[in-house]
């Protein structure tokens, strides 16, 4: 599913859980909230087929992904293999639930204002590529980085 240039779009009650690929460009934070909601679904609520998620140019976002649980959608995306977050300046931290993405092979973060990576990043044992660019607030990398036993490519600039 691709959503581009729909700044007012809001989906209720949530996006289809059968998605395999999700591209969101120039959307509002409201749409993101619908990714983390589980009303009307059982505790099994998850995007259990989602492999690729691109998130680019989000506006009107007030919460960190982890701070308000409404926005903590990563925990529902445990099958994710590639995650890309681009030009999301309001994003100041990634949630600890990032560590639960055991299938994640590729993580790309570009133009975000977070100051560090969550400690749980060390649990990403499938991660082959970690790429961070234009994230000027990053001052240090977590010690657990050494636990990324599959990492082949590390790019930070």
């Amino acid at each position, binding site marked *: 599913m691709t959503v581009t*240039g*729909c*700044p007012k*779009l*809001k989906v209720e009650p949530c996006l*289809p859980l*059968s998605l395999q690929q999700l591209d969101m460009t120039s959307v509002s934070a409201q749409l993101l909230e619908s990714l983390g909601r589980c009303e009307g679904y059982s505790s099994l609520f998850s995007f259990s*087929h989602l492999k690729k998620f691109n998130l680019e140019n989000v506006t009107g976002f007030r919460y960190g992904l982890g701070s308000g649980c409404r926005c903590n959608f990563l925990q529902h995306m445990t099958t994710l293999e590639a995650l890309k977050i681009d030009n999301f300046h309001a994003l100041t931290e990634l949630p600890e639930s990032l560590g639960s993405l055991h299938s994640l092979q590729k993580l790309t973060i570009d133009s975000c204002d977070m100051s560090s990576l969550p400690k749980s990043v060390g649990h990403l044992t499938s991660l082959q590529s970690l790429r961070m660019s234009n994230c000027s607030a990053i001052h240090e990398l977590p010690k657990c980085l050494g636990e990324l036993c599959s990492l082949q490519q590390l790019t930070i600039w």
Partner: protein
Amino acid sequence: MHLTCSDLLELPKSIGKLQKLRTLNLSHCGNLKCLSDSIGDCNMLSSIDLCYCMELTALPNSIGRNENLRVLRIGYTKIEKLPSSINTLRNLECLDLESCRGLAELPGSISNLHKLQVLNLESCTRLVELPEGISNLQKLQVLNLNFCRLKELPEGIGNLENLHVLNLKWCQKLGGMPRGIGQLSRLQKLGQFFVGEGEKFARISELANIGGISEDLIIRGIEHVMEPNDAQKACLKQKTNLQRLNLEWNRYDDVGEANTELQQGVLDGLEPPGIKVLEIHGYSGTQYAWWMQNEVGGGGQGIAHFSFLRVVNLSTFPNLKRLCGLVDLPCLEELVLYNMPSLESISGGPFPSLVKLEMENLPCLGEVWMVAERTMSDGEEGGGCNCLGQEFRVGIVCHI
């Protein structure tokens, strides 16, 4: 004689002595520069194939003496002009000039080729007009003009009673179809129809009796349809072989209120048969087609009607506000909504086969209720909510 020798530069003069020669095939002799004048002496020649003789720039005038010639293929050559003697080839049935990109004009005398059945001018990109004489080719069955830059077709094209196939793919400059084209009852393979501006061109209603076995149909210039009734008279619904339909409005800037109403009527009149792919571009009405909606007017019948529809691509609808009550499309796999600056809401479905959903440049689109088909079965059937027409039941959306 069949030669494919890429280094061959010319044929010996003595070729004219071959009095029994019937077929001369020199296709792919990439360096052949000219044919000997003596070719005109080969009285029995019935077929000449010079396709892909890419250095060939002209045919000898003597070719006009080959009166028994039935097939002449000179596609993909550098020929810029046909010899004036071509009009004497009175037995010629097939003239293939595909991709003669240097060819600037056809001689008017082509009208003397009374037996011509096939004329292939595909990708003759320098050709900007056809001689009116083409209208005299009474035996012509196939006229291939794909990728030509013609602005108009000969006015008398309606006289070509035997025309079966008219290819106009990617004729982007064509301003309309000549009046009378709708009388060509044998013209059953027609992939494109251009609605022109003004009385000079055929109205869309002329589409009613032609193109009956086409699987693809692109209708361009729909903004020139002046009466909804005309659209209805095109009887698209009766073209039951149609698989892919593309409706294009190519100008949609000057939209007054009256105009949006007219466009609405026109789209309503263009109800297709049970197709697989539907693309609509540039529609400026405020409401979507009645034939694809449940609530407005007739609806309902759409359910069985579009049971094989796989792809719907709707782009650049400047005034559409609501896309509501879309009928149940059981086979819909791909739905693209692109560039609809006024669109505020969408609802309808379910689309249980949907695998690709793209929404792009929909700046006013607000809340959308997406109900996955699978989750609907446990719990409510959706019936209650559906009467509000606010749900967009998408089913299995994924992106492969």
